């Protein structure tokens, strides 16, 4: 007995005193550790695949970006908005708006992934390295651009764009945030886009991954936002001239399960795997009942005043009496166009009007571009612009068409700010906003989430409110 007891004690001693490294390493179940997760080219590619999934399915273009911009703009009915959406709609967003914080973090999470890809690029074969890195840099650039559009004032807000932009993240780390100027931010975006263009394929037939045309389309969008019309015109033209993207001549929603041939970049829709655009359906769709987001009477009147415009059918005032809703997103699932050819025509048309003085030939091209859109809307050419209209007339027509054509797509806010910042006084409209705010009022940009300030007490927040 004594021996047994002593044996037990010795065993207990040994069992408890041995240094057992494995015993002290308990990784969370179901989690793959970085050393195991990122060790091959396929792993890096999988990380990149995740970026695309986030772009249209989890974050950003799934509707979070668009619906946030719509809250700030002037098309929604304010009556039934509450909480964080009401706060945005009143243009008084604060550090505690968790919707905005989730969007902000979500987009930067994509940036983190792209930075991780670039850090691990050595794992990729020489053949694929340039492409994968270029895709990562393209995605990183467009993420920065979308954050900059929402969280900082438009280029043109200050002389030399020295006003504060956003934190530029080029490494996957926890370094405290530090705002660059808007000039630095846009310079970075353009440089990254241009750098990525070189090593991307000219055209991806499935339009699901970045190619040269995607880069050019975004460069057109970025330059246009900066009121840099020559570059916007040039890049939009390159995309249109590529002939890879078919402009739909018959009016139809761009948001269908089968997708649209207009897409330059899109997120695929595979039932059981991912059905992008969820946020758009959640807040705009009226399939299952009166949606949360409704359209206000002012813009409804604008639509209705255009007799014969097929797009009037997008605003449904019948299904839910007393309420108007946008039925663009009524499909139960759809492919998510991230950028498309209609926008390229709209950009080129307006930019054409802007550069007509220096490039007279552009005017005709611009008029033809906008007429494509008008003709599609009306089903005939009766409302087409004459080829003799002035540049200003073209510009005004395009601005009006753009508002209608892209309703609910989150575009309106950016046009209010861009046109307000227009460098030419005669073409500048400082209060394009139908609710009366001036384009550069503080509340037109979102407040940063408190987390951003938390990590750096010196971080400069945006000024809030004072729009309405």
């Amino acid at each position: 007995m004594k021996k047994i007891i002593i044996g037990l004690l010795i065993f207990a001693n040994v069992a408890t005193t041995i240094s057992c490294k494995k015993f002290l390493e308990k990784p969370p179940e179901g989690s793959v550790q970085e050393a195991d997760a990122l060790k091959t080219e396929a792993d890096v590619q999988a990380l990149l695949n995740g970026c695309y999934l986030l772009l249209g399915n989890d974050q950003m273009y799934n509707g979070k970006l668009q619906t946030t911009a719509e809250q700030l703009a002037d098309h929604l009915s304010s009556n039934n908005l509450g909480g964080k959406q009401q706060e945005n709609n009143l243009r008084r967003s604060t550090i505690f708006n968790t919707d905005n914080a989730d969007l902000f973090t979500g987009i930067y999470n994509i940036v983190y992934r792209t930075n991780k890809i670039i850090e691990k690029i050595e794992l990729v074969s020489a053949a694929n390295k340039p492409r994968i890195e270029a895709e990562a840099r393209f995605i990183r650039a467009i993420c920065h651009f979308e954050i900059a559009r929402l969280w900082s004032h438009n280029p043109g807000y200050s002389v030399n764009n020295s006003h504060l932009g956003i934190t530029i993240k080029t490494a996957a780390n926890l370094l405290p945030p530090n705002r660059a100027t808007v000039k630095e931010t846009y310079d970075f975006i353009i440089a990254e886009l241009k750098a990525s263009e070189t090593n991307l394929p000219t055209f991806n037939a499935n339009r699901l991954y970045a190619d040269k045309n995607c880069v050019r389309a975004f460069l057109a969008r970025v330059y246009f936002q900066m009121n840099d019309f020559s570059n916007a015109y040039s890049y939009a033209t390159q995309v249109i001239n590529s002939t890879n993207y078919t402009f739909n001549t018959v009016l139809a929603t761009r948001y269908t399960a089968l997708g649209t041939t207009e897409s330059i970049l899109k997120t695929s829709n595979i039932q059981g795997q991912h059905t992008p655009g969820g946020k758009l359906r959640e807040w705009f769709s009226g399939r299952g009942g009166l949606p949360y987001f409704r359209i206000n009477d002012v813009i409804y009147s604008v639509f209705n005043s255009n007799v014969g415009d097929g797009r009037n059918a997008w605003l449904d005032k019948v299904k839910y009496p007393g309420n108007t809703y946008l039925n663009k997103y009524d499909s139960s699932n759809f492919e998510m166009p991230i950028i498309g050819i209609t926008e390229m025509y709209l950009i080129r048309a307006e930019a054409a009007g802007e550069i007509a003085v220096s490039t007279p030939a552009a005017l005709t091209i611009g008029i033809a571009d906008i007429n494509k859109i008008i003709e599609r809307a009306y089903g005939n050419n009766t409302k087409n612009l004459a080829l003799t209209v002035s540049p200003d007339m073209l510009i005004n027509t395009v601005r009006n068409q753009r508002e209608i054509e892209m309703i609910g797509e989150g575009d309106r806010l950016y046009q209010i700010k861009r046109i307000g910042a227009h460098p030419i006084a005669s073409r500048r409209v400082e209060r394009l906003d139908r609710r009366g705010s001036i384009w550069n009022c503080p509340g037109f940009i979102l407040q940063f989430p408190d987390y951003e300030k938390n990590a750096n007490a010196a971080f400069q927040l945006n000024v809030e409110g004072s729009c309405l």
Partner: protein
Amino acid sequence: MKLRLKQILKVCLMLIFAGLTVTGHAQTSVSGVVTDSKDGKPLVGVTVTLKGTKTAVTTNATGAFTINAPANGTLIFSSIGFTVIQKEVSSKTPMQVRMIATNQQLDEVVVIGYGTQKRKEVTGAIVKVSGDKISTLAAPSFEAALQGKAAGVQVVQGSGLAGSGSVVRIRGIGSISAGGDPLYVVDGIPITSDQFLRGDGGGMNQNPLSAINPNEIESIEVLKDAGAAGIYGSRGANGVILVTTKRGKIGKPKFNYTNKLGFVTYTQKPEFVNGTEYMQLKQEAWQNDGNVGQIPSSLIPSGLSFATASSTNTDWWKEVTRTGLINEHNLSMHYGNKKFKSFIAGTFGKSETYIKRNSFQRQSIRTNLDYTFSNKLKVFVNAAYNRGINDRISIWETIAAVQGWLLPIHPIYKTDGSYSTLSANPVRYFNETKYRNTDDRYLGGIILDYNPISNLNLKASASMDYLFSFEDQWESKDFTNDARGGIAKRYPIWVKNNSYNFTANYLYKLNDKNKFNFLVGAETQESEVSNTNGDIYAWGQDAPLYKNKAIYKDSLNKFLNDNTRKKQVVDNSTFASFFARINFASNDKYFLQVSARRDGSSKFGTNNKYGFFPTASAAWVLSDEKFLKNNNFINNLKLRTSYGLVGNSNIATGKYYYGYGNNRNYNNTPVLDPYNIGNPDLKWETVRNFDLGLDFGLLNNKLTGEISYYRKVTVDQLLEPGLGASSGFQKSWRNLEGGKILNEGVELTLNYILVKKQQLYVSVGGNISKNYNEVLNLGSIGADALQGGFNDTRIAEGYPVGTNFLVRYHGVDPTDGLPIWLDKNGNQTKTFSLDHRVMAGKVLPNFSGAFNTEIAYKTVEFKTLWTFVSGGNIYDGSAKYQNVGNNWNIRRDLLDRWTKPGDVAKYPRLTNSVTNYPGLGTNDNYNSTMFLYDASFMRLREISLAYKLPKGLLQKTPFSNAKISLVGMNLLTFSKYPGADPEITRDFQNSQDRNMSPNITFLTPTQAKSFVFSLNLNF
């Protein structure tokens, strides 16, 4: 009948233990009576041993004993607190033995980490609370009963919900994201006490401690400083609560039966306006907003018409509350001889709360066995099973809803008699749903205690703490309104916690005056929490799954087989530790202790796998010095001090890993998702803990007490949030570089015996603690960095943990009724802005404590315990929604409002949207000092009247003692807080929220008060 029961039980137990009983050898029977030399009272439980033999008996309730002894034998009389006496067997019987009390204050045995000490030898700060002070109170869990009983231990009792957990803070709070709760150790087992196993489902954090049966507790020792808690290393920083359960005693089988019967109701009912008033206020707001005519239906909650709403007046409070009943039965038995001792106890009870359908049932059994194989070897076996059945309610459907969005204008039923579904409907919820947590907890351990040579003791123990927890929810077909019928859901959680330790203790006597006690030990612990990744459900059910376990098993198997669900380990933490302690005693008045522990844990990063925690402490018994000896004034005076490093590692395991998920696809190609930024440097947080204390007994020990000063500086705080969102993540675990939080305080405990006579005993006592808490340094963390989850509390430099960071409300502009705020500089403004926020309040009190009285006359005892909190603030996070614009109930005290120009009012004019107050974009941000209140309160925590039946009455009964008592809890409360009860522990989101947000209420169920009749029988 009772006599038969007793006999049957005795026979059964004797049969069970017959093989283990040692029978004495018959000799001459010697009897006698042992009394206290001071007051002549009989002494119970004195061990009477025949010298040189193993023959021993104990004195009974009258102090009497009978022992077989030879005529020339010597008897040894020993009892804790008394000097050992040897007496030769006297021819005079009965023998009269008068025992002289030693200094009880110094001779009390105190449980310490991995051992026991006499109070005199203790160098750390330890408070001992006996079990009888814990079990009398109808508290939701045993830790709540500690309130007011130990200086420096602040206990904020959980809400009025069954089984709710309390926030226990020992000498303040120095943690940010890591748990700030003490380590709970039951009979040497560090047990699972995680309040977030089920998050905050239903508006309550499930409290695993409620499964500990308070009736089984012999004592609780609270280890407060490094000298006491340092031996627990990386888990000692928040203090340690050692729970020791009852054990067998030498003597014949003795039974104890207690029945408690009682009533429970709420301490205070929050008052809200009725339906008619509510509609009048809506109309008033409509007009305040510049409108005329009657408010349109679109602005009336749930689309009700003005007429319907105005004519409905449902008393929802009445619909959700009741007078709850308490009924509990405890039966215990202890028995023992020199070889074998046993304690067996069982409990069956049900405690309803004042909320309908909410109750806690306890079914438990404990067996603690001690067997002495020889002088060298003993075995201790503990086994306890406790089933806690918590019949729960979701507060959001019931008690919270009636204070929030469920309005008096909402009817219970539609006109056709079916349930109204315009808002929450508690009546429908009570009848059409079930919600139950069933926690089966097994606590067990075996300890081998071996003394191979003189003065060397080896102990090896293996312990388990298993918790099998099932949450059942059921909704009827009417409730789901689904063609598939009713749904029954079950959420299982399994917690397995195994620990093994080994200690070697060697007592080395250098000479007669100096001795060492060496302790070395090793310990491992592994705790695993598992669940299914979602509920196990079955449609078409008309009852919960606990009533149909076959369906649960079928569903579980089906879900596991088709991969709908999987069993997963959600946390698996391990510790491997080595520790050592050296105690040195000189002249029985100088005591020195050094200890060290090295902890390795799965919670620590690869670059910081092991932490080292050294401590040193000392005590000096001044009263044993010549210059104080024989002093009539000072009987006991002990100075003690300690300094050491203790740690806190109360976080989940493996947080230092980079984490990736690979279970998604994009366009039929694999996706890799990073979800956690790793940190191989992650480690424990460290507390530099200094303590200086003086224990004293004065005036013939009539006045006893303790005064302590402590200073704790916490560094390397474990921090989860505060990341820049531009990192792509909002949270990641790390140690706060440069972080420093101070807790500094003074504690005073006093007890004074006013009268101590044979038939009358009167004493008063109390304790008071002052804790100064300040965040000294937060590195580069910004003002909004460290929020308390749901709540508007912050951690900011220069302020205490849990500061209310609010816009200051100045008052109402009498001209237009709009609120006036103060900006940061104190200038008045009518535009609200978060930029105006300042540190305006704090959740921590200035002082907390208690005082008690005890009067015993003959067989009647009357005791009171008053607890108090002075200073600090309550923030009512729900008040900001309790306005007509948000369509919530309106608290009656908020009616002191502006109604017309010239009004001087406390609150601004009513509005149908707070966005009509300039600067406010949403109700969510409407946080200001308007709803910040003084948290000071005093309450009659406990009042009891007990009557011990005279022996004469019991002579013809099988009972040796019988006692009846009445105990009231929380019967009186004095507070300036205009809401419900001022003692607030709401449901928390996470540990950080829990650290920062006691005293923040959000529709929190008010505390309960109870009145319990208790019958206690010994036989």
